[in-house]
Every structure is written in structure tokens, then in C-alpha cells.
């Protein structure tokens, strides 16, 4: 557009903006990797300047990792829970869309997507933990009448050695995300009518969808799947709450080692992190070739003409059950957290507390438990990171005519989401120290921008590109300059989309654990870092309060994004908002 309208200097300006945004995406990751690779070979940046240890390249950290007896089990756990949960969440997301799209239940699912996405990983993990723990809400609801338990059973349902609880938590958190990206990919007009056509040729709706629509969808959701897979293999906060402990999945062990004062252990942690990166790359390659094998097999399946009508009822019923389980699980999990925060005395088999108490909340109100100050810090950081991220996103989209479905640019945007945090954030901390930067709120905010920016771009780029360029042409013909077109046409018209994107960015910032913990040098306490820290202890009332606060803050952001445009454009019917993800 810019070029078409013949503005001078537009090209040079756009080039600068693009370069800057690319640097925001790439430089921290490069710095972080540098800060991990050097220690993995025995060199700690910054130490030489302090005049301490001698500098000598060594393979000792790698030998230490290699000889650590838990290595293979920790790697296997990461692989199993990562690939397993991604496969399950991916399959379910596609089957739900295939079987239920267009129905009434599907409308409900779409409305629930935003709040489910806003749920921070740690809060989701805590909700699930409160639900399925031996003394959790589920056991209490079923005891003693169904189970006969008078005391919490001695079962390892939480932090089980196979990582099943972790996988369940990951599936619950990733399924809504994959649903959202699938819905976004479904928007292409070329896909309209395909399922109907397949049905008129005798195919069931679900099988018809998989044979005709899915092959067009998959290339578009491949990068989000990769991001999910990489996250699931390397999640720290979810694995710390739900995952096994002896050994823990490798990512958790890396954080433990990196947090030690002993330099040798930190070097070992750096080597282990790079080891993990190799495993993630291996899993991504495996997934890639697995997908090609499935595509090969699918060609034969297509040629066979199998209609799959018999499976239709089963698939629909099954997916309805999955959705029901998800919705009920979320509601009951939320209820469990809420009840705990208001519980007085609550003995085991009782489904509800014997006495209720406002004690925790009264305490919190007086500044107890650090919740209020953590709340303030969380909101401050999230607002700052979202503001910067949104400005960057607008500049990027304004400077770039098009972000195509599978372009290399998209890889760049997804880079911070696919590159595991545990692999480069500790190195970023080392690099920051070496550069003489002190950990604190500003550094945390800046680090959050690396993750907020891609999410804002991704959720804004659809609406941004579907904005009718003829409007700009019309305005230019009326004598408006590009600045005026941006501020008085495009921005107001895209306000709803921009606020939704900002709410997504805000939620992403609220949920950040590792960058907050490390870049804050342990001094910046947010709702998420505190909730994860408390999870190891037994104060369920305070944990409940923290998890609730963690859920409510991003939900308020989404609510504001929904309500504000309606208030601002109350008497403009042409501005009525399109549903999120539609």
C-alpha cells in the first residue's frame, strides 16, 4: 500500500522498522545462546572481567551431564510428556473441529476459548493439582461414599513417575491454543463448501473434513504445533508442579543446577540445557518426518474412498465428551481453588469445608503473603511489556505489506516461541550480568517483550491484513497523508482487534515464569513466580488465593478488550465486533 500511494521515504522507514523488530526477536536469543554455550565449555562470561577464574575450554560440564545417573530418564520424561501431550492435544483439537464445527456446542467452545487461553500455565497446573491430588477436590467429592477412603489415599496421582499428571496439564493448556490457531486457519474462503461437497459424495462430516480440509489446514498450523511441542518438552513451571521429581524432567533439573552457587554445577546446567535443545530439535525433526509418513499413508486412504460413516456417531459422541470433560474440569478446578482460599477447617473426606473463613483474604488485604505487592508488580510489568509489544507490532505490521501463511518471516516471529526458554533465558541472564546490567523490573519487562511481541503480531495480523486497502486509497485521494490515515482510519477501525491482541500479550506477560524469575535476579516477585514458589509448600489457602489472582488479572484484560470497543463505538453498527477467533 505504502508504495502504491507513492510516499517518499516510506521504503527506508519500513526497512529500519523491520530491522529493529528482527533484532528484538533475534538478538536476545543469540545473546542467550552465547551465554549458555560458553559456560557449557567451561567459560563463564563476566568472570574474567572480575579477574577471578582462569579461562580454559573444557568438556568437563558435558562429562558431568553424561555421567549424571538421571540423565536418560529425565530426557525420556521430557520427550514422553512433550511429544505425548502435543500428539493428544493436536489430535483432539482437529477431531473437535471436524466433528463439532457448525453445531451449538462448538459455539460454546469458541466463547470459552479466550478465558481458557488467558489462564496462565502455573494457574492451570495448580487448579489441576488441587483437583486430582490424593486429598484433592475430586477425591473429596467421591469419598467416602464411592471410594471408602477415610484418609487421603497413598497414591502418586500427582507428580507420578510416568508424568501422566504433567501430560494432562499440558494437554489441558495447549488444546485451546491449537483450537484457536485451527479456527484462524479455517478462515480461508477456499475451504468453504469442501465438507458439504464431500458429504454430497457420501462421506461423513468428520471423515470428509479430515480428507478435504485438514490437508489445507496443517501447513498453516505447523509452526504453532512446533511451538507447543517445544514448550511441552521444556516447561518448567508446569513440570515443577505436576511432574515427577526423582528425576524431574530435564528442564526442571537445568533450572535447579543453574540456580546453584557452585560454578561447576552451573556449567553442568548449561550443558544439560544444550543437551535438551538437541532433544527438542530431534523431536521436531521426528514430528516433521512423522507428518510426511502420515501424509503418504493418507494418500492411499483417500484413494480407497472409505466413507467412514460408521465412525461419525462415535467421533461426535467422543468429542462432545471431551469438551464436556474440559469444561467441567475447568469449572470444578476453579471452584476448588476458590473454595480453598475461603476454607476454614476442612477435614479430608468432607466435600466442603466445615467452616468458612475470610482469613487469607483479610491477611492478603493487609499485605500478608506479599500478594498485593506481587499483584502490583505483575500488572506494572504486564502493562509495560504489552505497551512496548503492541507499539512494535503496529510498527512491524505497518512496515511489512504482507505476512504470508508459511513465509520465512513467520519462522522469525515464531522463533522466541519455539526456542525453549530454559535454553536461552539463563544465558540471557549471564549475558546481562556480563554486560553490567542489574536484574530488576525493567530487565524483566524487556525480556517479556520478546514473548509478548510475537503473540501480539500473530493475533493482530489477520484483522490487520483483511482491512480493506481501498479505504486508504479513498482517504489518500481525499488528501489525507499516511499519518492521518493510520491514526484516524486504520487504528480506530482495528481498535477491537488491537485491544484483543493487547489482552493476549498482557496474559502472556502475566503467565511468564522463568524470565521473571531469572531476569529479576530473584528480587522481582510476581503472582506467577510466587504461586510456583508456594506450590512446593503446603499452604493451600494462600496458593488458592494466588492462583485465583493469577486467573482474574488476565481475564480482566480480555473483558476490557471486549467491552471497550462497544462503549467507544456504541452508536456505530458497522463497527460491531467479530467474535474472537472467528
Amino acid at each position, binding site marked *: 500500500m505504502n508504495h502504491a500511494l507513492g510516499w517518499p521515504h516510506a521504503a527506508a522507514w519500513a526497512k529500519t522498522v523491520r530491522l529493529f523488530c528482527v533484532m528484538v526477536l533475534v538478538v536476545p536469543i543469540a545473546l542467550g545462546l552465547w551465554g549458555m554455550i560458553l559456560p557449557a565449555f567451561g567459560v563463564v562470561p563476566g568472570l574474567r572481567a572480575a579477574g577471578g577464574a582462569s579461562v580454559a575450554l573444557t568438556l568437563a560440564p558435558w562429562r558431568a551431564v553424561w555421567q549424571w545417573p538421571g540423565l536418560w530418564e529425565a530426557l525420556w520424561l521430557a520427550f514422553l510428556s512433550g511429544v505425548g501431550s502435543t500428539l493428544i492435544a493436536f489430535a483432539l483439537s482437529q477431531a473437535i473441529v471436524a466433528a463439532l464445527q457448525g453445531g451449538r456446542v462448538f459455539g460454546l467452545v469458541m466463547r470459552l476459548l479466550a478465558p481458557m487461553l488467558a489462564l496462565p500455565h502455573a494457574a492451570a497446573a495448580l487448579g489441576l493439582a488441587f483437583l486430582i491430588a490424593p486429598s484433592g477436590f475430586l477425591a473429596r467429592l467421591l469419598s467416602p461414599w464411592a471410594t471408602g477412603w477415610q484418609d487421603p489415599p497413598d497414591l502418586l496421582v500427582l507428580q507420578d513417575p510416568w508424568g501422566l499428571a504433567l501430560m494432562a496439564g499440558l494437554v489441558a493448556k495447549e488444546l485451546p491454543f491449537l483450537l484457536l490457531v485451527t479456527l484462524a486457519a479455517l478462515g480461508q474462503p*477456499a475451504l468453504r*463448501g*469442501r465438507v*458439504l*461437497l*464431500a*458429504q*454430497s*459424495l*457420501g*462421506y*461423513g*462430516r468428520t471423515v*470428509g473434513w479430515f*480428507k*478435504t480440509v485438514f*490437508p*489445507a489446514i496443517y501447513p498453516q498450523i505447523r509452526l504453532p504445533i512446533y511451538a507447543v511441542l517445544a514448550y511441552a518438552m521444556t516447561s518448567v513451571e508446569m513440570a515443577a508442579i505436576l511432574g515427577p521429581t526423582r528425576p524431574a524432567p530435564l528442564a526442571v533439573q537445568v533450572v535447579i543446577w543453574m540456580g546453584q552457587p557452585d560454578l561447576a554445577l552451573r556449567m553442568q546446567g548449561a550443558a544439560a540445557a544444550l543437551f535438551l535443545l538437541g532433544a527438542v530439535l530431534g523431536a521436531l525433526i521426528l514430528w516433521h518426518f512423522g507428518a510426511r509418513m502420515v501424509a503418504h499413508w493418507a*494418500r492411499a486412504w*483417500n*484413494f*480407497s*474412498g*472409505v*466413507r467412514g*460413516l460408521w465412525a461419525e456417531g462415535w467421533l461426535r459422541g467422543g468429542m462432545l465428551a471431551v469438551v464436556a470433560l474440559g469444561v467441567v474440569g475447568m469449572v470444578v478446578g476453579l471452584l476448588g481453588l476458590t473454595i480453598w482460599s475461603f476454607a476454614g477447617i476442612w477435614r479430608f473426606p468432607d466435600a466442603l469445608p466445615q467452616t468458612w473463613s475470610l482469613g487469607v483474604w483479610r491477611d492478603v488485604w493487609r499485605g500478608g503473603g506479599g500478594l498485593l505487592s506481587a499483584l502490583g508488580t505483575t500488572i506494572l510489568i504486564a502493562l509495560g511489556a504489552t505497551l512496548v509489544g503492541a507499539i512494535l507490532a503496529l510498527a512491524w505490521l505497518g512496515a511489512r505489506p504482507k505476512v504470508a501463511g508459511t513465509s520465512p518471516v513467520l519462522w522469525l516471529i515464531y522463533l522466541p516461541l519455539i526456542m525453549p526458554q530454559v535454553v536461552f533465558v539463563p544465558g540471557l541472564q549471564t549475558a546481562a550480568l556480563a554486560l553490567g546490567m542489574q536484574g530488576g523490573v525493567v530487565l524483566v519487562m524487556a525480556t517479556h517483550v520478546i514473548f509478548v511481541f510475537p503473540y501480539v503480531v500473530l493475533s493482530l495480523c489477520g484483522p490487520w491484513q483483511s482491512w480493506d486497502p481501498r479505504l486508504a486509497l479513498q482517504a489518500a485521494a481525499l488528501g489525507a497523508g499516511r499519518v492521518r490515515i493510520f491514526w484516524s482510519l486504520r487504528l480506530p477501525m482495528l481498535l477491537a482487534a488491537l485491544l484483543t491482541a493487547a489482552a493476549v500479550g498482557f496474559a502472556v506477560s502475566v503467565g511468564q515464569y522463568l524470565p521473571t524469575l531469572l531476569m529479576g535476579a530473584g528480587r522481582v516477585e510476581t503472582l506467577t513466580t510466587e504461586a510456583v514458589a508456594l506450590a512446593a509448600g503446603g499452604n493451600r489457602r494462600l496458593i488458592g488465593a494466588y492462583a485465583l489472582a493469577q486467573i482474574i488479572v488476565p481475564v480482566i484484560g480480555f473483558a476490557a478488550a471486549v467491552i471497550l470497543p462497544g462503549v467507544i463505538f456504541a452508536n456505530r453498527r458497522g463497527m460491531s465486533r467479530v467474535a474472537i477467533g472467528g
Partner: protein
Amino acid sequence: MVQGQQKTGLEICALKIWCGARRLVEMDHQISPGQITSVMGPSGAGKSTLLSALIGALAPEFRMQGRVILHGRDVTDAPIATRRIGILFQDDLLFPHLSVGGNLAFGLPACLRGRAVRQARVAQALEQAGLAGFEDRDPATLSGGQRARVALMRTLLAEPQALLLDEPFSRLDSDLRAQVRGFVFDQARALGLPVMLVTHDAGDATAAQGPVLQLTSDA
């Protein structure tokens, strides 16, 4: 095609479709095997709605009354997939991820087993369409007329008992239009299919040589 079954054609019995309080369509009509009925009317008169109702894909905001009987079988409440009513849309809707042969095999019933048997049937269909040897071609490399013929063969390979045509020739230029139209009509007549053609073009209706029904915008 199905032996021993009474071939009475496609009966549309006292069909009425409402959108809210507005009545869109009112029709009572029988199309006998091999006959082509044309339905004409201005945009918004409910032509596409009528076809959706006949294949069983009526959007929930519409209300419908009446029956649809195909060769004596009441299909009014049958799911789309089991009605055996084929349809050709304005766009050919060839699947871009499948080869031409893959597109045709997609239409073939699964009960025709064995790769060789299915390949032979696909080859035969391509020959009928004057496209022999096109199995491995990418649909995107075909001309408009070729695509239209592949789309028709795909529909016919699914062995429908009736055929609906939703302005399938409107995207073709006038030369090609007559040619493709002739091909579609000949194939449908040869198979004895009752056909309903929705069109804007009077030439289509004339070529169909059958009854012409007019839908008005305020039925």
C-alpha cells in the same frame, strides 16, 4: 443404476421454505429420470436455499415443510451423505492437495475394492471425459473446461441417483459453456438421472429441453 428399484425420479412434494416469517420457496414438482428441470429467478429468490434443502444442508435459520422423495425413498430427513443426491457448484471445488486421479477416486464408493480396480475405473472415467492419461496431473494445471469435466466425473463416480446443478457453467466463457453444458447433460441423460439446474442464463434453460420453473423474490 440400482437394479430392481422403482425409478420414479426426484419428487419434491409440497416443499415450502421460510426464512423467519418470509416464505422463500414453494414448490411441488416431479423430475423423471433423464429429465432436466431448470429453476430460474433473480438473486435472493432462494435458488441456492432450495438446493441446500434438497441435499439436506439447510442452514438453521430456515424452516422447511414438505417431503423429498428419491425413486420412492423418502430422503427428507436423511443425512447428506446417505441421500445419494450429487451436486455441482459454481466453483469446481477440486481438492488442490489431490491429483486429478485422487479427486476422482474420492468420489468412487469404497465398496469398489482393490487399487487396480479403482485405478481402472478412474481411467475409464477420464477417458469418458476426454482426459485419458490425466491421472497424475495437478488440478491447478487444468483449463476451466477440463476442471469442470473432472468435477462432474467425480460427482458421477459417487453413483448419485439425482443430480443438482448450482449454476455450474456461469464461470465459463460462452464457447466453453455450450461445450461443457452439452457434456454434463449428455452424461446425466445417459445415466437416467433426474436433474435440477439452477441458472441465471436463459440459454442454459433452453439447452436443458425440460420444464422451466420461475422463483420470484416474493413467493
